[in-house]
């Protein structure tokens, strides 16, 4: 589970959005896969990811026992070890990178580790090709995202869509994305604070905080 396919944006908008994920297949290569999934994540954290996830939690998770002082001191540090230790069952593990260089370096190490798991890269078509080429790996299969079909006009504007669809399971609601964008525009939250709030809603850890920060900054600049 990651569902990164239908992130909203043009190819240029994915210049800082590379998701690499590993997935075992039931009955094919899931036996004894837990150490391999952990190894995959350990390789990823060596290459400065923006986020990682294990299907149950991302590296910036909700906090369930806050005290009143938390309103001034929210935790915004990303916890890699908690995610890695939290891999308990076969499933998808993932890491988000913000440059081709870091994604390619990570992918090179993954190839060398020869884990035997299916590994996918979710980004623009060309970005993925380039990462593969730089490591001497040919693509096996490709799934293209066709444009969202919305004949009944349900969807919000492109900025809200871009922020919201970075949680592919739809856990970042349009209203929450809009609220965070408004709070940034009104100067009630910094883009970093707004991004931390949005990132906590994505349980798979595939939300890209760097891309979200850029989108919020762009929205703030637009109004000037």
């Amino acid at each position, binding site marked *: 589970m990651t569902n990164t396919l239908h992130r909203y944006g043009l190819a240029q908008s994915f210049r800082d959005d590379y998701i690499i994920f590993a997935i075992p297949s039931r009955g*094919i290569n899931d036996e004894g896969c837990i150490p391999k999934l952990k190894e995959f994540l350990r390789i990823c954290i060596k290459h400065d990811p923006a986020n990682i996830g294990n299907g149950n939690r991302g590296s910036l998770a909700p906090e369930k026992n806050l005290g009143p002082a938390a309103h001034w001191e929210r935790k915004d540090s990303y916890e890699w070890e908690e995610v890695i230790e939290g891999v308990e069952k076969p499933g998808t593990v993932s890491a988000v990178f913000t440059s081709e260089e870091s994604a390619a370096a990570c992918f090179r190490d993954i190839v060398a580790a020869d884990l035997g798991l299916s590994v996918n890269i979710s980004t623009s078509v060309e970005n993925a090709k380039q990462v593969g080429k730089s490591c001497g790996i040919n693509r096996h*299969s490709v799934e293209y995202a066709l444009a969202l079909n919305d004949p009944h006009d349900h969807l919000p504007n492109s900025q809200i869509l871009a922020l919201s669809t970075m949680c592919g399971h739809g856990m970042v*609601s349009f209203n929450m994305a809009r609220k965070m964008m408004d709070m940034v525009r009104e100067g009630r939250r910094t883009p970093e604070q707004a991004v931390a709030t949005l990132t906590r809603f994505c349980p798979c850890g595939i939300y890209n905080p760097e891309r979200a920060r850029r989108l919020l900054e762009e929205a703030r600049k637009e109004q000037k």
Partner: protein
Amino acid sequence: MIINQKKCVACGNCIPVCPMGAIYVDTGKNRAQINDDACVECGTCYRAMSTENLNPVLVRMVRKAARWFRFRFEPEPDVCPTGSFEMNDLEMPRLIRQIFSDPVVEHTSTGIKGRGTEEVKTNDVNLRVDTGEVGYTIEFGRPGVGVRFRDIQLMTRTLAKNGIKFEKKNPITLLMTDESRGDLPEDILNEKILSAIVEIRTTLEEVEKVLKLVHKVNLQIDTVIAIGISTRCDTNGEDNLLAPLLENLGYPFSRAKTNMGLGRITNKIEVKDNMKSTL
């Protein structure tokens, strides 16, 4: 999902959190409520909101005083101050909402979380879609709209009527009471879920027909549809068939999920001969 009425302080923080817009504050009761028909049991409010577990009586008093002085609250937007959300035990047919909407809940039929299918993510070891074939993931309801099984059935029946076969290891296919007709169980038809994926496979020649069909049925279904369309690349890692075809047909795409072919069969299983030749 339940909001504990003894704990809720009607702060309204949870209202924008809900992907379906199912939470509102009842001003008469001065408590947040859930519209059960709109709620898809995705668990976002319960799981993703941080909590403070403050004393509700104290919080209500502070809020009342601040309101009297016209003070503007500036709380953390993702915090429930009193931990009011509670997950209740669900039974079928309502349970199906949670299975299809909560990404951390496993689909019982396939054992996979999220939307419950491996799609082409494991095509390097499963070969669901070979070179020259086309796989489709037709996803209903996402982002942010939701869908009822009745509407999904309209699509599956139309596809079945046109002779299109469904992917076997998919939660919607496994729910079908009659795969040849695309029928879903009667008792779940009115249940609303956050999203679901119907998976099919065709030849390249059928792509135009299928995409037109999906768009046509979508006009009758009051939701959003996202289509993923996949194929296996050639030995050089190129796709010289599907991508040019989509461009010719006027279907733009910029993003893709790319299987890099690193998977291997490592379980101790007997592999069928025809599988060996294609992997």
